[in-house]
């Protein structure tokens, strides 16, 4: 199985193409998307186990020798993210059966999801910087379709801005790759790392590092490039929002972490200092946004921005605790953001509004929803033993070890703001006098609750079962901190 790293990319792609033939037949589309995601998930779990036992797997397409052909590389970091991506997609797809509506299902909703997953997994797996650009475009084009699908007034308005921002940042990506190519003369990421180490990162490479931070920062929504995110993410329906919130920004974060641990490691005093300052500012503006709104979607959307800041702050420490904390927090955040978006989707379905002021007393009628929301909220804030705790603990530990006391105090304090922002939703929506609810059927509610509950339980297990995950995260951390492992695997 030398092609194993390719399976989680190709399988969703194959099923998406198959589904294109059944535009009108929603039942077949649902079945195909479910089967496709489950098979890809099994493949990715197999990949995870293989990477654990055999180390980094690398395939160079067309059997060209390594720096010339396009390499696909599965190390533990990318295998973990690929698996989490498919896991979240599974729950969102099941949730969509009830939540998205037949009209959208008939206009290539499921193929678009699987095409996007193809792009996301490809971006996580690729070992070639230009190929990463191509996979970014694959996932972006699918996301353009998802964000505008339905053609509501608001969607059209916001997707113009979303596309425009991403087109400009893609052009910047091409420019950055061009500069990098002119300096190092190669596109293979392992080879770039070797070449940069040979010349010892002169000033021009540091400039390219900052350019890369801008390019990926636009996708990953860091300060001050997050401006497009709150407006655009609020436009599409909740299942799409859950996918975007859980997956898309994380691709940008992954790319920053990969390039800043593999390429730009020789002038850490400048590049990682910039990354750290920017990430702390990201956390602060995210906190302001999360408290400023009375809109369910906006509150959780700003929590995405906070999480991006926290993860990058951990990554900027460049020590073992910081990086492994960032990896723990990255996977946690994908799971818990998926769960939270699905939960607020149900709250919006039940109350018929996303305005907190028009809600109240849901605890009397929808108690399980309230309890699971509370668990997810505590998990997001990182209350032990839930899933966010270990990541934040390690990030803070890494920052103290690296001597960045103020930054870590801000990160820790932000947990309180996160808790406050999500508990506000709980207080407004679930406590107080019951409001008049629009008539909704009990059956769709139960059907939407099922995948959501399983996802919340999974996130709890992720927190409680940290002990079992540590070997995997340690492997991922080792690859990031010692680029030689990655390079040796690719260049053999």
């Amino acid at each position, binding site marked *: 199985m030398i092609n194993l790293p390719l399976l989680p990319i190709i399988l969703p792609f194959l099923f998406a193409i198959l589904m294109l033939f059944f535009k009108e037949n929603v039942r077949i589309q649902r079945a195909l998307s479910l089967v496709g995601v489950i098979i890809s998930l099994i493949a990715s779990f197999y990949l995870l186990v293989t990477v654990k036992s055999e180390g980094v797997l690398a395939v160079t397409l067309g059997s060209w020798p390594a720096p010339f052909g396009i390499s696909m590389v599965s190390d533990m970091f990318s295998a973990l993210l690929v698996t989490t991506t498919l896991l979240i997609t599974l729950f969102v797809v099941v949730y969509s059966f009830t939540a998205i509506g037949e009209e959208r299902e008939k206009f290539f909703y499921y193929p678009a999801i699987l095409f996007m997953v193809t792009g996301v997994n490809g971006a996580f797996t690729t070992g070639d910087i*230009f190929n990463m*650009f*191509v996979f970014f*475009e694959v996932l*972006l*084009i699918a996301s*353009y379709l998802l964000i*505008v699908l339905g*053609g509501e*007034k*608001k969607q*059209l*308005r*916001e*997707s*113009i801005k979303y*596309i*425009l921002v991403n*087109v*400009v940042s*893609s*052009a*910047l990506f*091409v*420019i950055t*790759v*061009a*500069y990098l*190519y*002119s300096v190092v003369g190669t*596109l293979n990421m392992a080879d770039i790392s070797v070449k940069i180490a040979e010349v010892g990162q002169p000033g021009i490479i540091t400039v390219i590092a900052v350019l890369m931070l801008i390019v990926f920062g636009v996708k990953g929504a860091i300060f001050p490039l997050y401006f497009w995110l709150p*407006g655009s993410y*609020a436009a599409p329906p909740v299942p799409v929002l859950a996918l975007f919130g859980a997956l898309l920004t994380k691709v940008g974060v992954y790319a920053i972490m990969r390039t800043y641990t593999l390429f730009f490691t020789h002038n850490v005093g400048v590049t990682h200092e910039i990354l750290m300052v920017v990430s702390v500012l990201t956390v602060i503006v995210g906190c302001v946004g999360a408290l400023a*709104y*009375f*809109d369910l979607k*906006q509150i959780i959307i700003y929590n995405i921005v906070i999480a991006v800041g926290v993860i990058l702050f951990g990554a900027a420490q460049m020590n073992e605790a910081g990086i492994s904390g960032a990896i723990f927090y990255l996977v946690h955040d994908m799971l818990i953001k998926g769960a939270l978006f699905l939960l607020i989707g149900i709250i919006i379905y039940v109350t018929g509004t996303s*305005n907190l002021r028009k809600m109240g007393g849901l605890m009397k009628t929808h108690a399980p929803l309230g309890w699971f929301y509370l668990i997810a909220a505590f998990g997001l804030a990182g209350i032990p033993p839930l899933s966010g705790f270990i990541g934040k603990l390690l990030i803070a530990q890494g920052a103290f070890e690296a001597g960045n006391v103020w930054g870590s105090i801000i990160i820790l304090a932000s947990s309180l703001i996160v808790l406050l922002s999500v508990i506000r939703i709980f207080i407004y929506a679930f406590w107080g006098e019951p409001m008049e609810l629009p008539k909704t059927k009990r059956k769709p509610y139960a059907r939407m609750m099922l995948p959501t509950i399983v996802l919340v339980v999974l996130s709890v297990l992720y927190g409680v079962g940290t002990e079992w995950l540590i070997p995997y995260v340690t492997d991922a951390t080792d690859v990031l901190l010692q680029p030689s492992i990655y390079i040796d695997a690719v260049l053999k």
Partner: protein
Amino acid sequence: MELVVAILIGVLFTAAVYLILSRSLLKIIIGTGLLSHGAHLLLLTMGGLGGLAPPVISEGVTDFADPLPQALILTAIVISFGVTAFMLVMAYRAYAVHKTDDMNQLKGNDEHD
């Protein structure tokens, strides 16, 4: 030669930024087109414009063009072509629904408080 192309790229970027910052939706899309042209030319130039022979290795050829930027630029052109086509269709839909192509009137922050 590189210098001339560099100036040309600069002009393209300037025009692109000017157009993207305008209010009319159509001008913005033309601006993104110019921006990607500039980026593609930059990609080609960064490989070096030298090289007398085509990039086919044969007996006695030592000075050949770098084939990689040509492959990259082709990929990038196709992608930007697809995205521009999508954007044009979407802009038309937005114009039909909103009855305006003025970005000032497409701000819309009205529904959250």
